[in-house]
């Protein structure tokens, strides 16, 4: 009978924030009340700390198998729990591509061996992420896949995407769409606008993202199927989603901390750690993303954690890999910019970082209530610190936030009632 007692913390419930003790037993929350005592339970002193449902990141790249020099399941899991995440969903752009039950099974098995956070593989939509023929979604689901996506390699052919939405629904799988019209991107590396012209770097127009986003909405609407939009970065994208949701389209969407904290002013210094896809946009987009998170147009916050080796970033901007190592900074950035910034309440932040992804992918977790899985993230909201990539557990030190001052240090991450991270 494993027991854990979290004493004296301020607990973020789905509808309120109040002080309470939490007792867990065998991986479940069994009791929430004031002044619980249990001599047999290991006790965590959470006085002055805030207890959230364990965060769920439904969009990460763990790079294993194939790119272990960037990250592997062990380092990625360690980074995840250091960021307060009890569950992550990993994208299939590995080598080999996670487009079959064997690779899904490998990832599940490796993650169990590592034994830190829960790792849910996302299977590819098409074989080899080539956008041509559907991958074996039924078999991948049986092996543990929780969704399908060709993330990073958008399904350019609308007919294939239509078939994917239809077929995936037979297995209760959601298609996660990385929206990017490759013809419009045409080799661009930063947001198209004033700063792309200033830096002389090729721009990526917002239309490249929004056209495919509109396509996914139209397909989902006409088919009556669901679709999830990855890493929304533009004001126009938020508007399209808001209108679609008002019409009742079964569409959900995510965004990332770098889209509500940075503007593309950062690219003019040619620091390749600012290179990410979709690109960092402009101030009006940042505002729209915040509004979208506030009103629920954007359901959740993910990191799109994309660790890369330093050699892939310390090169010419055009040659550098796209992506930000974000899983260890997501909570502090979100808390600092959204909660302290007056955009979201603590309950809303817990929803966007935990309950919403659980709903979208039908995962356990996402709420602190009796009977629920004992996945918790405990943070000190008053602790101010400076982001230092050298201290990342992730192999990927590629962040544009190095040196940024933030609030909200994760102190404990509890997964299935076990302490998996302690600051």
């Amino acid at each position, binding site marked *: 009978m494993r027991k854990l007692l979290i004493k004296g913390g301020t607990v973020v419930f789905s509808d309120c924030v109040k002080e309470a003790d939490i007792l867990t037993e065998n991986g479940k929350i069994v009791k929430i009340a004031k002044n619980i005592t249990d001599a047999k339970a290991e006790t965590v002193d959470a006085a002055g700390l805030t207890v959230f449902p364990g965060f769920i990141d439904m969009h990460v790249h763990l790079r294993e198998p194939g790119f272990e020099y960037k990250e592997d399941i062990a380092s990625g899991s360690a980074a995840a729990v250091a960021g307060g995440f009890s569950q992550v969903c990993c994208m299939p752009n590995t080598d080999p591509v996670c487009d079959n039950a064997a690779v899904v099974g490998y990832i599940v098995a490796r993650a169990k061996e590592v034994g830190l956070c829960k790792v849910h593989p996302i299977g590819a939509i098409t074989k080899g992420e080539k956008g041509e023929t559907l991958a074996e979604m039924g078999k991948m689901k049986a092996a543990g896949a929780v969704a399908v996506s060709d993330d990073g390699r958008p399904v350019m052919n609308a007919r294939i995407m239509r078939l994917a939405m239809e077929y995936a629904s037979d297995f209760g799988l959601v298609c996660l769409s990385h929206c990017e019209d490759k013809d419009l991107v045409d080799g661009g590396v930063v947001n*198209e606008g004033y700063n*792309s*012209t200033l*830096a*002389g*770097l*090729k721009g990526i127009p917002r239309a490249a993202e929004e056209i495919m986003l509109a396509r996914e909405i139209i397909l989902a609407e006409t088919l009556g199927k669901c679709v999830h939009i990855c890493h929304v970065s533009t004001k126009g994208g938020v508007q399209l989603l808001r209108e679609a949701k008002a019409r009742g389209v079964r569409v959900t969407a995510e965004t990332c901390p770098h889209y509500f904290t940075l503007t593309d002013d950062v690219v003019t210094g*040619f620091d390749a750690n600012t290179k990410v896809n979709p690109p960092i946009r402009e101030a009006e987009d940042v505002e729209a993303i915040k509004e979208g998170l506030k009103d629920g147009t954007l359901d959740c916050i993910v990191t799109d954690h994309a660790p890369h080796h330093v050699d892939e970033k310390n090169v*010419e901007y055009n040659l550098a890999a796209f992506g930000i190592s974000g899983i260890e900074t997501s909570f502090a950035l979100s808390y600092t910019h959204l909660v302290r910034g007056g955009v979201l309440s603590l309950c809303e932040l817990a929803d966007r970082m935990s309950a919403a992804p659980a709903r979208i992918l039908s995962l356990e977790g996402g709420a602190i209530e009796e009977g629920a899985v004992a996945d918790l993230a405990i943070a000190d909201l008053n602790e101010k610190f400076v982001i230092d990539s050298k201290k990342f557990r992730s192999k990927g030190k590629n962040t544009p936030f190095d040196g940024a001052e933030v609030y909200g240090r994760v102190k404990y991450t509890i997964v299935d009632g076990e302490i998996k991270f302690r600051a």
Partner: protein
Amino acid sequence: MLGKDLLGLYDAAQEDILSILDTAAGMKKLLTQNLKKLPHLQGRTVTTLFYENSTRTRCSFELAAKYLGAGTVNISASSSSVQKGETLIDTGKTLDAMKNDVIVIRHPMGGAPRLLAKNVRASVINGGDGMNEHPTQALLDFYTMREKFGSFKGLKVAILGDIKHSRVAKSNLFGLTKLGAEVVMFSPATLMPQGIDRMGAKIAHSREEALAGANVVMGLRIQLERMHGGLFPSLSEYAQYYGVSEEHLKYADKDCIVMHPGPVNRGVEFTTGVIDGGNSEINEQVLNGVAVRMALLFLLCKNRQGGSENA
């Protein structure tokens, strides 16, 4: 104060630009006296590191260095370790290890000179990086304008051609706005970059509007690959609607000068009559380019004196 490197004119101070131009005037005097064995850079080495094809810029730098007595080394991407996959930073550090003083880099990607400069001890001169900047071309353009008009105040400079892909247009814009000139740009909409108006350029909506009263008419090279990329349908259509003929030149000030960074597509940006006409300064620009580069090399190396290059 000019620092270790010259990476662009966006960050350059007006007085640095003027001091380079002033120094270049002295250099040009020496050049016109055919004095080409000067002692200024004796014991220095200048390497041109070119990742893109170039004849005029590279040759201009090499001769400028040689005229001042420096040793020169030329590296082309096609004949170097770059072909074997060496990174830019490693190439730069290799040159550093050989005690090289100045690297002139041309690179197809914006920001590459800055990356290099951050990682090497040598002074880095941007010889053109992607769509970012080409500061020495702009400086020689300024020299040519100042020689002709004496001052930049109130000067109207019309720049016509592929603005979107032009590092020359941007370096000119950044410098000329600092010097007090007015810059007007004209191109097909597909070749006009976003936000350039917010950087101080006036965007003309017709060739006539762009040329009206212009003191300087600058054409930019139209690259064939842009046509193949679908940005405009054909060279002949370009010439008809966007090119400048002697007829169009009548809209400009009668004492205007015609400039072009070269190489020119005769009959596309400008007709032959414009290129070889009385207003053309295109060949003078080339001579001025050597003088300006001599001045820049001299000033940067002077800065290095007592610096850390022998550390």
